[in-house]
């Protein structure tokens, strides 16, 4: 069964090659191939998630190891290996990626300006994301981490949209350049961390399980943990380093911002958990209060600034920053419940934000304006779009029965259990503020008297509706019955936290 993981990365890369071959005169053929490979990835990711069961040990399933570079210079026996495996944390993340890309392909159905190059870059992005979630070799984790960042520039700069505020405009080139440079800047820290860890471990291999087995000395952990935490944290929207994410996601085309906010930001948090916390437990304990403070500030800061936004997409961008703040809070608790909550929130937020961005994209495609004060009573014109948007919003404000509540509840409980009462209270306050800006947006844009200007608005395209419905299925599924997620995650988290 371990070919599944290889296939998961091979399909997007294969699709990229197939796209290259298709002459750009057949956009429809490109879209069909995209849908087929999207569906294949979705099925495989669901298969991986369903067939994964823990059963003790380090919980690594579908293990596949192909050596790539060994017995050369300082590299020992299996120096750098193409080592793929899934454990409790990465199984839901793989599922999330499968869902978001499948929905994303449908959402980006009407992109016709050079859509071949668009899908090439999009699938390159996806292969990078799958690579990070699956690879257990630090080299390849970093390799795929950068692959995921590489296509972002062109995706945003060519197909994105600049946003014009009264006093200044945020051009898409600026946003794209800032996003790519910020993330690659973050990866500088990770690179240094990897080099230092490889040297310190002295095993001559980059394999995570092997590196994990080594116990590093106290001060080394305290010095290297912040490198990883900060490097990955930048992608996870850690508070002071989050400014790239609202600008980047707003300028990106819909499917890209869905994929980026929905999945790529989870890469950062996943990296912190998979690399930083697994390898350096004492370092984590030492830095946990700082991470918690930044997480809480991020959550509150994101929520409050989301409230002041007039642009619909910026509001969703800042809400992602706020929710990622919750994830970081969860990670910082270093308790099973808290970290569980963090992973659940990664999944829940992934699906929610993807849906919200999809809906904002649907509105933008027809209305070509994103200022929510200009809208009014859209629910009467496009009831289904309003309903989908409402569900995403309600899930993000933590309404029970939807994915948001389960995750946030775990995080708050974990924060209290870890003794950070102040953080817990502030976190719950941030959740309340989330409620204000979500409801304010719903009231302003979708409910209230109908604004005649939008008489020409039609209901969402079929593709968007299908993509949205797919996401809602998982929001409700996790909200109503989170047991399958939690069982998988908790065992692996217990293994990681050595509890």
């Amino acid at each position, binding site marked *: 069964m371990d070919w599944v993981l290889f296939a998961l990365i091979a399909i997007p890369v294969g699709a990229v090659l197939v796209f290259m071959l298709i002459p750009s005169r057949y956009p429809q053929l490109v879209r069909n191939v995209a849908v087929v490979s999207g569906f294949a990835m979705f099925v495989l990711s669901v298969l991986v998630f369903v067939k994964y069961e823990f059963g003790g040990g380090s919980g690594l399933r579908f293990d596949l190891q192909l050596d790539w570079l060994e017995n*050369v210079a300082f590299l020992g026996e299996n120096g750098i290996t193409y080592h793929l495996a899934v454990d409790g944390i990465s199984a839901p993340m793989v599922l999330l990626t499968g869902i978001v890309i499948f929905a994303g392909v449908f959402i980006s159905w009407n992109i016709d300006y050079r859509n071949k190059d668009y899908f090439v870059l999009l699938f390159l992005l996806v292969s990078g994301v799958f690579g990070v979630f699956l690879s257990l070799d630090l080299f390849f984790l970093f390799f795929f981490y950068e692959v995921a960042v*590489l296509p972002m520039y062109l995706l945003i700069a060519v197909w994105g949209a600049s946003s014009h505020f009264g006093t200044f405009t945020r051009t898409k*080139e600026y946003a794209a350049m800032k996003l*790519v440079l910020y993330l690659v800047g973050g990866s*500088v820290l990770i*690179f240094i961390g990897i*080099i230092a860890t490889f040297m310190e471990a002295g095993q001559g291999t980059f394999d995570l399980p092997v590196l994990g087995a080594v116990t590093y000395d106290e001060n080394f952990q305290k010095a290297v943990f912040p490198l990883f935490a900060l490097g990955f944290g930048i992608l996870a929207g850690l508070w002071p380093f989050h400014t790239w994410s609202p600008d980047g996601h707003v300028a990106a085309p819909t499917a890209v911002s869905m994929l980026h906010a929905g999945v790529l930001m989870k890469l950062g948090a996943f990296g912190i958990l998979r690399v930083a916390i697994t390898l350096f437990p004492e370092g984590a304990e030492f830095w946990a209060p700082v991470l918690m403070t930044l997480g809480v500030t991020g959550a509150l800061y994101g929520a409050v600034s989301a409230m002041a936004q007039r642009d619909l997409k910026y509001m969703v961008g800042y809400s992602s920053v706020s929710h990622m703040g919750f994830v970081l809070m969860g990670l910082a608790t270093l308790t099973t419940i808290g970290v569980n909550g963090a992973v659940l929130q990664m999944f829940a937020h992934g699906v929610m934000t993807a849906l919200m961005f999809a809906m904002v994209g649907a509105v933008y495609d027809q209305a070509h304006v994103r200022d929510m004060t200009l809208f009014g009573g859209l629910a009467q014109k496009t009831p289904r779009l309003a309903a989908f948007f409402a569900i995403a919003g309600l899930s993000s404000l933590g309404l029970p029965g939807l994915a948001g509540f389960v995750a946030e509840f775990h995080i708050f409980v974990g924060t209290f259990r870890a003794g950070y009462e102040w953080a817990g209270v502030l976190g719950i306050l941030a959740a309340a503020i989330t409620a204000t800006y979500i409801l304010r947006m719903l009231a302003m844009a979708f409910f209230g008297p109908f604004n005649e200007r939008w008489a020409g608005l039609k209901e969402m395209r079929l593709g968007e509706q299908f993509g949205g419905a797919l996401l809602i299925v998982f929001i409700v599924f996790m909200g109503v019955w989170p047991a399958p997620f939690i069982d998988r995650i908790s065992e692996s988290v217990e293994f990681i936290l050595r509890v």
Partner: protein
Amino acid sequence: MELNLDWSLLTPEYILAGGAGMVVLLDLFWGRLRKDQLAYVAAAVALASALTALIWVNDDTNFANLIDIDNYTALFRVFFGLIGVFACLASARFVKDRLLHAGEYYGLILLSVLGANLMAAASELLTAYISLELLSFSLYVLTSYAKFDLRSNEGGLKYMLLGAFSSAIFLYGIGMIYGVSGSTRFSEIAASLSGDTAGFDMAMFLGLVLIIAGLGFKVAAVPFHMWTPDAYEGAPLPITALISALGKAAGFALFLKLFGQAFIPLVDDWRVFIAVLSAMTMALGNLVAIQQRNIKRLLAYSSIGQVGFLMMGIAALTPENADAASALVLHLVGYVISNLAVFVAIIIYYNWTGKEEISDFAGAAERAPYLALALSIGFFSLSGMPLFAGFATKFILFQAAAEQGLLWLSSIAVFFSFVSLYYYLIVIKEMYLGKPAEPTRFPTPWLEYGALTLLVAGVFLIGLYPQPVFDIVEEGAVAMMAVAEAAGTVTAPP
């Protein structure tokens, strides 16, 4: 004490020398031969020399104690031969349209490849110096080859004057080392330097400094890099490619051999200096490149930046193992291939438009999608992005440097390789987002695109599966460093 005078060992060099002469004569006497066909002849000669070099793989002899014929030499002979091939192919159309006396042009290229080969093979100071001068002289002339273009003359003049000046300094350094160690052969120098050198400290270090300065000039390390931007901008485009590929590669081949074999006993003294030089080179190269508007000057500074990374390999040399050397050579191969890919693409674009400013690349993606893709791949590889050669080679180079306790240098290197991404992205932005002058597609030059595809394939090969390339490189590096260990045991002077 008989010398191994088996002349057959030098066949690749004979092919090159003979070829050069033939090309010149062909141009003079065979009127009907069109200029670009000369390029294919020269390329064939270079290819022949590269292939014949393969005969002596896994061989370990020397020719009259002047030249080592081992894996290291074989590796670099093939490498320089291929660079020569690509240089000739790339300049075929350029020379036909813009330059005269094509014969001498290709002759000089072959001679420079010959010089480079000998530089890598030299096992003693005099041969090294002579081959260095051969390479430098041919490059001086080639740089000022566009007789009526003021910029080419100025570039050539500066390169030549400063080159002569720094080779004089290099020579003075060699003199000092010869004085101290009594011999010019690397192995013997290493033996005498590892002995007690209490008496000659001053002279030895002066010699070492001067040699570092001389070689520093050749590879464009920071304080000695001033000529590079002007020479690159002045020289005709294929020659800029040649300087950045052949000049740098040969410079590092000699730098590595000299410091890996001759001065390895003093490694603890000069390690820090090379490291500081490398850090400064990275910093200046990458930071000033951001300011550039001309593509050739941008590539000049980017190659200075890359030199900074390469020098890390030398700073990380250690008698115990050949890790640093193999990492350095691997990155050198990766750098040269990516650099050539970029230059070939720019040459093709120059042949169409005749312009060098970055803003002239606006809309290149619409007018020549494949070219834009190849250029972006080259740039991403240079900046160390995954999927491409730069990522794997830089990763291993930085790790090798860190192994020798130069973690601070690796961190600076990683930071500046991230800075380099910025100015490459500027060009890519221009290509993909700019508005082209007129939307017509460019005609596809099949030959150059063939060369380009080969180079891009090379970039992908090293990027995605470097094991085979790395094994070859490691053999060369181990062969070179092995001589150093053997030298540890003092042998009778010749």
